[in-house]
């Protein structure tokens, strides 16, 4: 292939690069001339949906991002919050949806690698991974292969780098048949006085490239992530990147070693759009220019062109600005870890990204206008029509309650995910004190009494039925899960997965979800500190369910206060917190038992959530509670059964079905509810305290025996519950 940087920039070429006429006109204006091919490539990836957030920016700006404990909100590589003692927690969630559909193992693996880099580039040691996964219907021909590959890829990468994968969520729904979602979250720990940002500074300072060599991987990957799938997606296959967790582990150690010195001025990982976006962000962020000699870039393949080098998405690479004269010292560190290290240029005062290749300037772009003038659209949107509430009477009672419960807990959406988390090393680093299977994962802050609780949640069927309520509910569910283990919720990250924003209905879902999230964040004092948007999750015009996955982070100052969902002793009293109205609209019961996805989702009363949650957390912190579980998917009976299974103890429960039909009481998904298991001698005090605070609470039974017994239902042995609960996924995956 002959390389010509100065080919004629035809309309077709511009279109191929995904730039609209207006965008190209803006490009001409910024440059004051026709772009070279390399420049066109740079504009194209910088202004792709993935890098520029052009459809979402306007709405994202409305999210609350501040609180006294927020050190850095959105805009940096990841969000940073204060956890006291000069320590900070740094976290973010990101999507790797399209690559994971094309090549599940590598797509998911590189997703984990990418999110790790976002966190350690800020100076944090990664301490926990989470993964939020959505697959198509289990009956769909590809689902098994995708589930198997994605889980193996997440494990393959996370296990090797030695960061525990401590939790996540997994849904199946036909709306993901052609577009699965793989959202990976990482949480890291740093000292507040050792947090690194990306804004470059210091005219003349050297710019360093470290990590793996650059190959032709994933060229156009960033633009692919912004394009809708069509049948010919097969052709885009070679753009998949292969992850190298071994190199990533070395890169983590080498970067943290480098950061423990005082040599680093700024640092940025090369993520989507690789060298292009990292250098433009660093330069524009610092209001300076970069002058690079591309001949210095470590290259894996022969004959790479500037265009390819700038657009490559090879993994495991970082860009660093050093203090002057420290190159040799820095190089010694990367030599020790056997990583490539190259001085590729320096900071200039021009404000331009100037790229030289074999003595010729192949690109010279003012970075500030490129970054600041990136397109921003106010896309037309329509509000999702409101749905009517479904009354409990509109949903038939099951022929047999026991069989219904077994069917529920043995269903794809509610069965145990142990087949998944057993493939993840969830204990490496020896600080995991709440393993997967509970409401939130809990990881100790190494060497202290503190611990961090993490939960990822979203109920896409609610978001589809009512984006505003669904957006609220997603935020609230993480908050509730953190509360249920006893942690104080601090902040969230999000990963907003939607269909094609150029369709007003989809844009309406996006706007609605953000609106709901915003309300929840404000009332719960639970700001958004980082996030990611993934649009165009749609195949042949059918979009996914709107899926704003939320990753919530909470803190324990004393991790010994933590509780799990497992009752501790026979004789403990079970207390139901919150009111049960029997809301079956878009419930899992309706879906699993009747194959319907109708009605409005359960309304979220944010003030009630806060009241009930604060009460529960205070009781846990006062050490009055032995176990706690929030009630979400599947409702009360499912939550009770999960507690019984976790403790391998039975329970005897008596409920009053006078005002609510039994099946609605059992499986309704009313919000703001928890089940507490408390020592018998503490029950009365808790109930009267609740009454005094206006929190609805009821004594509903006791822990003990080997059977799960609820009035109005034949009893079930806990071992039968367990066999049913643990059966589905293993059976399903058994014959891959």
């Amino acid at each position, binding site marked *: 292939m002959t390389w010509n940087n100065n080919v004629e920039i035809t309309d077709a070429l511009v279109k191929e690069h995904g730039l609209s006429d207006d965008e190209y006109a803006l490009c001409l204006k910024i440059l004051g001339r026709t772009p070279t091919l390399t420049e066109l490539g740079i504009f194209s990836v910088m202004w792709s949906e993935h890098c520029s957030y052009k459809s979402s920016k306007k709405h994202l700006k409305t999210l609350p991002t501040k609180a006294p404990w927020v050190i850095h909100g959105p805009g940096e590589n990841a969000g940073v919050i204060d956890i006291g003692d000069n320590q900070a927690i740094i976290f973010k969630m990101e999507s790797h949806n399209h690559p994971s559909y094309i*090549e599940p193992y*590598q797509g998911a693996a590189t997703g984990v690698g990418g999110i790790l880099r976002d966190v350690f580039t800020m100076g944090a040691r990664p301490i926990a991974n989470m993964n939020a996964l959505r697959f198509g219907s289990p009956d769909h021909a590809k689902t098994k292969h995708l589930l198997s590959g994605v889980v193996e890829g997440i494990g393959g990468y996370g296990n090797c780098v030695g960061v525990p994968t401590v939790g996540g969520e997994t849904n199946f729904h036909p709306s993901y048949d052609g577009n699965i979602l793989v959202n990976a979250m990482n949480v890291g720990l740093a000292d507040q006085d050792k947090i690194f940002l990306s804004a470059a500074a210091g005219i003349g300072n050297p710019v360093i490239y470290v990590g793996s060599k650059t190959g032709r*991987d994933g060229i156009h990957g960033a633009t692919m992530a912004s394009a809708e799938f069509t049948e010919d997606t097969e052709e885009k296959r070679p753009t*998949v990147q*292969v992850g*190298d967790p071994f190199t990533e582990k070395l890169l983590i150690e080498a970067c943290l070693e480098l950061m423990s010195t005082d040599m680093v001025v700024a640092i940025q990982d090369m993520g989507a759009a690789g060298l292009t976006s990292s250098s433009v962000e660093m330069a524009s962020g610092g209001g300076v220019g970069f002058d690079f000699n591309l001949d210095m870039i470590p290259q894996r*393949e022969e004959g790479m062109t500037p265009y390819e080098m700038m657009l490559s998405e090879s993994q495991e690479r970082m860009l660093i600005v050093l203090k002057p004269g420290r190159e040799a010292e820095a190089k010694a560190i990367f030599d020790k870890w056997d990583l490539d290290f190259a001085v590729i240029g320096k900071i200039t005062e021009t404000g331009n990204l100037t790229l030289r290749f074999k003595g010729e300037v192949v690109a010279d772009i003012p970075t500030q206008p490129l970054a600041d003038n990136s397109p921003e659209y106010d896309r037309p949107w329509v509000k999702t029509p409101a749905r009517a509430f479904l009354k409990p009477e509109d949903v038939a009672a099951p022929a047999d309650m026991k069989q219904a419960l077994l069917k529920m807990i043995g269903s794809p959406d509610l069965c145990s995910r142990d087949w998944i988390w057993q493939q993840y090393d969830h204990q490496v680093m020896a600080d995991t004190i709440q393993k997967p299977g509970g409401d939130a994962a809990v990881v100790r802050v190494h060497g202290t009494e503190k611990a961090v609780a993490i939960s990822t949640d979203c109920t896409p069927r609610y978001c589809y039925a009512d984006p505003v309520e669904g957006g609220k509910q997603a935020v609230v569910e993480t908050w509730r899960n953190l509360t249920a283990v006893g942690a104080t919720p601090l902040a969230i990250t999000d990963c907003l997965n939607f269909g094609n924003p150029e369709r007003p209905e989809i844009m309406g879902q996006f706007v609605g979800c953000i609106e709901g999230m915003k309300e929840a964040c404000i009332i719960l004092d639970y700001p958004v500190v980082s996030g990611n948007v993934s649009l165009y999750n749609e195949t042949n015009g059918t979009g996914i369910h709107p899926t704003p996955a939320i990753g919530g982070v909470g803190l324990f100052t004393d991790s010994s206060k933590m509780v799990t969902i497992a009752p501790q002793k026979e004789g403990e009293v079970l207390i139901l917190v919150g009111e049960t109205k029997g809301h079956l609209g878009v419930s899992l019961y309706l879906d699993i038992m009747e194959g319907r996805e109708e009605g409005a989702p359960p309304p979220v009363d944010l003030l009630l959530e806060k009241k009930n949650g604060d009460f529960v957390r205070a009781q846990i912190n006062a050490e009055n509670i032995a176990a706690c579980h929030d009630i979400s998917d599947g409702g009360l009976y499912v939550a009770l059964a999960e507690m019984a299974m976790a403790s391998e103890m039975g329970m005897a429960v008596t409920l009053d079905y006078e005002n609510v039909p039994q099946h609605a009481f059992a499986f309704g998904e009313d919000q703001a509810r928890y089940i507490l298991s408390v020592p018998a001698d503490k029950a009365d005090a808790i109930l009267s305290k609740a009454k005094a605070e206006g929190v609805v609470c009821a004594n509903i039974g006791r822990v003990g025996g080997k059977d799960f017994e609820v009035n109005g239902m034949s009893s079930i042995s806990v071992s039968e519950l367990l066999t049913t609960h643990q059966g589905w996924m293993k059976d399903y995956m058994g014959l891959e």
Partner: protein
Amino acid sequence: MKARVHITLKNGVLDPQGKAIQHALTALDFGGVDDVRQGKYIELDLAETDREKALASVEDMCKKLLSNTVIENYVIEIE
């Protein structure tokens, strides 16, 4: 019949294993190892006795299971 299948990474696809082996060989003082690529080698014993049919069947196996055609190539020999 016996079939032998070689599965190798496509050109341009990163081969972390090969790279690490090359590095380790160099550390063990083996000079002049310019490149290393690692692939898989699979031997199948087939009941099929017709060469053409065996080939077609193994071809199908490669597409459906043995190789990951997104990043790998395969070569089949029937003997």
